[in-house]
């Protein structure tokens, strides 16, 4: 058993869906004791314990149930909070307050408690009651608008990047508050608006607007303000194996300076078009990107994607296959080297596979100690060992639909 970085940190976890669970999963991977609170009343659909998403984002956590509509359940939750370092939620603004589980209320039972709320818009401001999911926040942050091709509708992400971004930011907020507590003894409330967590990730575009009045427009894969090229995704030889939902395969090439351009020209056999004066400089290649991309594709189009990647990277050109899930699991030697896919045995279910913690900590590596919990799986452990309730009391509270 190695040391764990967050040994001794207890987190009472009221999160659901993706953003919140992703935040607390990271902390659990690093050794925090995360007690996830659910209720039979609300664990449905993607939030039911056997669901793929739930199984993925709630490994390494203990699971209890509390029917928070019952005053007795709130009382138990407050007793647990009194024994915890951190309480995390990602509800909209009113939920925790209505239960008496907000920072001001919990400070009374634990003066140095840390509460981190991870709502979409944040708990203040004119839009605090907005209904928002990842895609909503992506649209409001500016990111969706700037992800697309000129003259086409914005594409944005095909998934909820904002949930991951909000999640990792939430984990940072918890850890920063723990640092402050270690320095001063003081707990606090962190009001995290996932809209801000997202908006913070395209900083230079805002400075360019604030200082120069630049209003950017979508440019496909080209960098917004750093002229270079070829920089984009290029079509390779089709995959006719029938294994993939679509035949098209692509490689990303990112040439960002003249040395890399020269290496690129050499790697593809110096065809005549590479001598075109328009392509002699970074600015020229950027300005004539459409033409350049078409020509680059004349080289990539009949190459198998991994062969093209090998030829280019060996020459010193940044290049990588646009990998799909199958590639990530079976073809990528680096992810294999990192043991990137973890697997946990789980009762009444096939083994759960998921992405590992993506950084290696030499002294306190992230560990996998268990799969996601079944609904209320750790009721006895938590209410019994932690709160000292007897088996009979727990049973009675279950019958009363308090522990439920």
């Amino acid at each position, binding site marked *: 058993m190695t040391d764990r970085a967050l040994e001794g940190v207890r987190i009472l976890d009221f999160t659901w869906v993706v953003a919140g669970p992703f935040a607390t999963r990271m*902390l659990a991977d690093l050794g925090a004791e995360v007690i996830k609170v659910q209720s039979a009343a609300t664990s449905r659909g993607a939030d039911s314990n056997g669901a793929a998403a739930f199984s993925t984002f709630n490994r390494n956590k203990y699971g209890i149930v509390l029917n928070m509509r019952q005053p007795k359940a709130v009382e138990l939750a407050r007793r647990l909070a009194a024994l915890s370092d951190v309480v995390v939620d990602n509800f909209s603004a009113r939920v925790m307050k209505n239960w008496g589980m907000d920072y001001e209320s919990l400070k009374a039972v634990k003066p140095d408690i840390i509460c981190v709320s991870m709502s979409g818009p944040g708990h203040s401001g004119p839009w605090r009651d907005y209904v928002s999911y990842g895609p*909503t926040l992506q649209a409001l942050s500016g990111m969706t608008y700037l992800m697309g091709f000129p003259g086409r509708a914005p594409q944005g992400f095909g998934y909820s990047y904002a949930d991951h971004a909000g999640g990792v930011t939430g984990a940072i907020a918890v850890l920063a508050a723990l640092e402050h507590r270690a320095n001063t003894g003081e707990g606090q409330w962190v009001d995290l608006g996932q809209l801000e967590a997202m908006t913070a990730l395209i900083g230079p575009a805002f400075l360019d607007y604030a200082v*120069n009045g630049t209003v950017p427009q979508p440019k496909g894969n080209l960098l917004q303000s750093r002229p270079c090229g070829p920089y984009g995704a290029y079509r390779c030889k089709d995959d006719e194996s029938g294994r993939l939902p679509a035949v098209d395969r*692509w490689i990303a090439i990112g040439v960002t300076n003249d040395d890399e351009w020269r290496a690129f020209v050499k790697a593809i056999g110096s065809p005549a078009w590479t001598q075109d004066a328009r392509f002699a400089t970074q600015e020229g290649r950027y300005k004539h990107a459409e033409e350049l991309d078409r020509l680059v594709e004349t080289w990539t189009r009949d190459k198998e994607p991994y062969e093209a990647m090998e030829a280019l990277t060996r020459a010193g050109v940044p290049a990588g296959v646009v990998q799909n899930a199958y590639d990530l699991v079976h073809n990528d030697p680096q992810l294999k080297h990192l043991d990137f896919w973890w697997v946990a045995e789980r009762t009444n279910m096939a083994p759960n596979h998921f992405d590992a913690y993506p950084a290696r900590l030499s002294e306190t590596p992230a560990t996998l100690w268990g799969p996601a919990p079944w609904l209320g799986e750790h009721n006895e452990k938590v209410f019994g060992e932690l709160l000292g309730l007897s088996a009979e009391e727990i049973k009675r509270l279950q019958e009363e639909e308090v522990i439920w």
Partner: protein
Amino acid sequence: MPGALQGLRVLDLTNERGVYCTKVLADLGADVIRIEHPKGGGIRDFPPYYHGERDANRSLYFWHYNTSKRSVTLDITKPRAREAFLKLVDGADVLVESFDPGYMASLGLGYADLALRNPKLIYTSITPFGQDGPLAKNPANDIVLCALGGMMNVNGDPDLPPLAAFGEQSYHVASNYGVVSTLAANQYRRRSGRGQHIDVSTEACIAGFIEHVGYFYWYNDMIAMRQGSLHWSLAFAVVRCKDGYSMVSIAHNWEDHLAWMLSDGFGEELAGQPARPTQIPDYATRRANAQRRTAIVEQWAATKSVDDFAREGQERRLPFGKVLNVDEVFVNPQLRTRGFFVDVQHPELGETVTYPGAPFVMHASPYAIHRRPPLLGEHTHEVLAGELGMSEAELAQLEQEDVI
């Protein structure tokens, strides 16, 4: 009020791959000393520039990622710099670097070297693939990592190339993991007195930041592909209104949504259809269904102005959001009310510049831009003479040799 990381001394040797990590640490209150080449270079050359003026102190890219830091010029490749650098290491808690694997070790400044001097040092390395493994030495940058990590395969339209995220997100993702890992390691150091090496793989970070891709494969044996703006859950898409685009939901509160459409004379063909036709087992069929529904929603949206449409959607508790560009985000009343954008004095320009600010609101130890980004070498004397006690003669000598 001081920040949460008050008293944490960080040496910053990052390029674009890891510079967001040290920005977050600095804005959280750490004393971050950026070690730069005496001639500047690197991200100080990155556009966009203040009023288009290319200068080491006028890169807006540099500004954004280096708020709250101090700058010391020191050419660590020169033997003469070694003494000063090692003195800095002796007093540091954290070092963050994002050079290619092996580069720091080649200078005698790898983790093993520095840990001998300062066993409490947390040494965080952020690289494309991690420190070792079959791809560790491959040339790679943001677009290549978005491709290899599996992100591009699920962004973009099927009839267009796969799409990377806007704003070089792979660097932000890896940097955020760098922050989480570093702060977790700091908790361990508080208990044990020991530092450690943190090895962040950007590709692995991305591969675990793409929501559905892993679990679609593991749980449903499905390879997720790009499908335009239609979210993998088939619940969100971008639609065109009269004068702009809106993110809409086509599943949440569907009855209210449909009633609203019907009252405008649209969507009759959708009456009686369930919000999410889960009885169709096959994803491709469900997707075709969602695309038809989106097309009908779009016909209706085309009759409305986007501001009214998105606002009225929210009034009806539908998670709509206008697809905003940065100029609109810049004046968004929610962000403005919550103080997300902050004015920073640049006395050297006689100007105040508006920066994007905190990704979350900490009430006791604010995340803030504590000082404007440093001019090149602005704090060299302050740190080397004032804090390390080097003599003016020594500094003059180093300056003469282009070491500082």
